[in-house]
C-alpha cells in the first residue's frame, strides 16, 4: 500500500466499476492479496507458512461449524455424540478426523511461521506490531485448541481441563476462587463443558479478526525477506498475484497431501488412546499429557521442582510457563541488533541453530514423556537455556556481534552481483 509503484486496481467490467464506487471489496482484495501488493522477489519457502496457517484455520472453522451441528455439549452425552458423528453421520468420521488433525497442522504451520520470524528478524522495526499481533493470535489459538480438546469428554479431555484450570489455583489467595469461577464448579462438569464449547466456537472468529489486523499491519512496511534488507525500489518486488499466489498454491497442494495422508491412514497417531475412554472423575489416567503442541510449555511447567524462599514451586512453574510465551511480547526490544536476517549474524545463527532449536526440541520431547528422570533434569537444562536465550543472549549479542556485510539491495542478492560493503 505504501509502495508508489504498486499496480492500481482497474475494474474491468461496468459492474466492477459500479461496485468499486460503492463497496470496493475487489480493490481491498486486489491490494492486500492480489497484484496490488508488491512483495519482495526473494522470499523462500519459509514464507509459505502464514498462508498455510490461514488455510488450516479455514478448514478448522468449516469442519468445526459442521461438527457443532451434531455435537451435544452435555457431560452425559458429549462422548456418545462424538461417536455418533464417527459412526452414523454421513462422512462424519472424515469431518471429525479433519478437525482433530487440522488443529495439529495449524500448529505445525504456525510454529514454522514463528520460527521463520525468529530467524529472519521479522519482529524487528518497523514490524513490531505484526509480531505482537502474531503472539496474540498464538495465545488465542492455544486457548481455542485446549478448549476444543475438552469437548469429546474423554479421559484426557477431563483431566486436561482439571490440570490446566488447576494452574490458576497456584495464584496466591485468589487462586482457588478463580479456578472455581473458570469451571463453574469444583471439578469439570456440565458448566465447564458448555462454556468451553461456547468459547471454542467464538475464539476462532476472534482469531480471524486479529489475523485481519495482522495482515493490515503487514501491508504498512510490506513483507520482510531472507536478506532482511528493506525493499529499495520496484526492481526488488514482484506483485503478490500471480507470483506468490502460484507459489502458495502449489505448496498448499503439497501440505494437503501430507494432511490427508494423516487424516485417512493414521488419524489417531497424534491423539491419545485414553481419550477414547469416557471421562471418569474418579480415576486419573496413568500418564496425563496435553496435545503435542503444548509439550514444550508443559515441560517448563514441570521443570520447577523447588520452592524459591516463599514462592512455591507450583507457582514458579506457572509463572515460568506464562513468562516463556509472554517474553515474546518484549522480543523486539530485547534484540536490538540492526541486522534483521540471521543469515548475516554469524553468532546469532549459532545460538539459533545449536541453542534455541535443540532446546525447544528437548523441551517438546520431555513434555510428552513421563515426569521422571532423566526427563525432568533434561527439561531443567533446556528451560534454563530457553530463558537465557531470549533474556540474556539476545540483548547482549546485539552489542558484541559483528554482522557480515549485507547486500545493497534484494535485487543484488538475487542476481548474484558481487556483494559490496553494507551501507
Amino acid at each position: 500500500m505504501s509502495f508508489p509503484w504498486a499496480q492500481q486496481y482497474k475494474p474491468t467490467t461496468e459492474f466492477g466499476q459500479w461496485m468499486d464506487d460503492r463497496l470496493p471489496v475487489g480493490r481491498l482484495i486486489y491490494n492486500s492479496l492480489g497484484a496490488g501488493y508488491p512483495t519482495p522477489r526473494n522470499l523462500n519457502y519459509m514464507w509459505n507458512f502464514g498462508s498455510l496457517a490461514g488455510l488450516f484455520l479455514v478448514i478448522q472453522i468449516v469442519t468445526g461449524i459442521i461438527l457443532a451441528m451434531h455435537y451435544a455439549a452435555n457431560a452425559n452425552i458429549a462422548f456418545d455424540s462424538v461417536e455418533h458423528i464417527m459412526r452414523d453421520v454421513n462422512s462424519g468420521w472424515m469431518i471429525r478426523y479433519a478437525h482433530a488433525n487440522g488443529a495439529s497442522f495449524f500448529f505445525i504451520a504456525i510454529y514454522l511461521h514463528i520460527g521463520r520470524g525468529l530467524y529472519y528478524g521479522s519482529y524487528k522495526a518497523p514490524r513490531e506490531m505484526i509480531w505482537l499481533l502474531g503472539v496474540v493470535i498464538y495465545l488465542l489459538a492455544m486457548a481455542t485448541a485446549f478448549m476444543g480438546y475438552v469437548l469429546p469428554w474423554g479421559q484426557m479431555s477431563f483431566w486436561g481441563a482439571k490440570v490446566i484450570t488447576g494452574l490458576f489455583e497456584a495464584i496466591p489467595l485468589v487462586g482457588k476462587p478463580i479456578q472455581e469461577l473458570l469451571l463453574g464448579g469444583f471439578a469439570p462438569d456440565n458448566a465447564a463443558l458448555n462454556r468451553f464449547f461456547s468459547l471454542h466456537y467464538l475464539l476462532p472468529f476472534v482469531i480471524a479478526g486479529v489475523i485481519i489486523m495482522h495482515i493490515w499491519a503487514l501491508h504498512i512496511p510490506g513483507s520482510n525477506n531472507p536478506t532482511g534488507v528493506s525493499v529499495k525500489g520496484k526492481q526488488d518486488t514482484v506483485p503478490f498475484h500471480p507470483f506468490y499466489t502460484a507459489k502458495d498454491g502449489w505448496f498448499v497442494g503439497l501440505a494437503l497431501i501430507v494432511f490427508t495422508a494423516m487424516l485417512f491412514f493414521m488419524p489417531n497417531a497424534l491423539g491419545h488412546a485414553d481419550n477414547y475412554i469416557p471421562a471418569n472423575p474418579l480415576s486419573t489416567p496413568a500418564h496425563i499429557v496435553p496435545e503435542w503442541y503444548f509439550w514444550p510449555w508443559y515441560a517448563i511447567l514441570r521443570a520447577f521442582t523447588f520452592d524459591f524462599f516463599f514462592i512455591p514451586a507450583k507457582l514458579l512453574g506457572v509463572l515460568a510457563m506464562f513468562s516463556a510465551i509472554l517474553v515474546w511480547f518484549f522480543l523486539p526490544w530485547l534484540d536490538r541488533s540492526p541486522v534483521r536476517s540471521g543469515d548475516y549474524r554469524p553468532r546469532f545463527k549459532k545460538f539459533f541453530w545449536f541453542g534455541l532449536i535443540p532446546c525447544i526440541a528437548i523441551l517438546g520431547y520431555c513434555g510428552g514423556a513421563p515426569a521422571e528422570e532423566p526427563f525432568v533434569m533434561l527439561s531443567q537444562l533446556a528451560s534454563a537455556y530457553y530463558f537465557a536465550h531470549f533474556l540474556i543472549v539476545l540483548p547482549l549479542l546485539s552489542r558484541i556481534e559483528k554482522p557480515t556485510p549485507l547486500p545493497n539491495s534484494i535485487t543484488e542478492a538475487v542476481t548474484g552481483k558481487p556483494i559490496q560493503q553494507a551501507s
Partner: protein
Amino acid sequence: MVRFFGILIGLFFAGMMVYSFGRGAVEYVSNPPVKAVEYQFHEKPKEVSFTSDGPFGKFDNQQLQRGFQVYKEVCAACHGLRLVAFRNLAELGYNEDEVKAIAANWPIETADIDPNTGEASTRPSIPADKFPKPFANNVAAAAANNNAIPPDLSLITKARGGGAAYIYSLLTGYTQPPADLPEANRPGTGLHYNPYFANLNLAMAQPIVAEDQVTYSDGTKATMSQMAQDVSAFLIWTAEPSLIKQKQTGWAVLAFLLIATILAFLSYKSIWADVKSEKKKKDA
C-alpha cells in the same frame, strides 16, 4: 530498560533451573531411582497381524463373523458393546433376517418402558437398537464382578495403547506368576496374573481357556490363539467401522491431490519463468 529487567528475570529463571538441575542431579547420583516392579515384569504386546492392517488392508468378513461369535459366547455376558447397533452387523455380511434374528434372540433384552404400566421393563431387541448393556450401571457391574467394572468393548482397540495387538496379547497372555515376582505384586484374591496388563494383575479370569470353546460354523479350527485373534479383529471393526472406507477414500483423495499439486507446480514454474530468466540474463 526492557533489556535490563529482561536480563534480571532471565538470570532468575535460568538460575532457578540450573539450581534445580544441580539438586536433581545430586539426588539422581546419590539415590538412583528404582524402576517399579511393574516395569521389570510388564511385557510389550505381541507381534500379530490383521488383514485390516496397512494402507491396503481389508476386513475379512469370515473372521469378523467368527470374532463376533467369540464375543457373543465368551465376552458378552460381562462386556457391553454399547456404541454398536445390531443393524451394524449387516456390514459383516449378515443379511437382514439374520440381523433381525440375532437382535431378537440376544440373551440380554433392551431396556424399555412397559406401554401399559409405565414401569421399567425389557423387550427383545430390534436391528435399530444398540447392544444392550450387560449391567444396568457401574455399581451393578462392580457388585457382580468382585469390585472391578468390565469395560465396554466398543472402542477398546482405540482406547488401549497397543490396540488390537494388546487385546490379543492380553487374551493369550495369562500365565503363572514368575518365581522371582515380589510378594506385593503377586495376584491377590480374585486377581489373575498377566504380564501384558499394566499392573500385572487383573480381575478378569482367563476368558479363553480351551480349544474348541466355541464351534465355528465355517470349519475353522478354534484354537485359543485363533479365537483371540478373531475377537481382536472383530473389536477393530467395532472401534472403527469405517476403517476400510477411510483407506479407500484416502487413496482417491491422494491421487487427485497429487495430480493437482503437479499441475500447480508447473503453473508456478511457468509464472516465475520470467523472473528467473531475468536472473539468468543478469548472471550471464
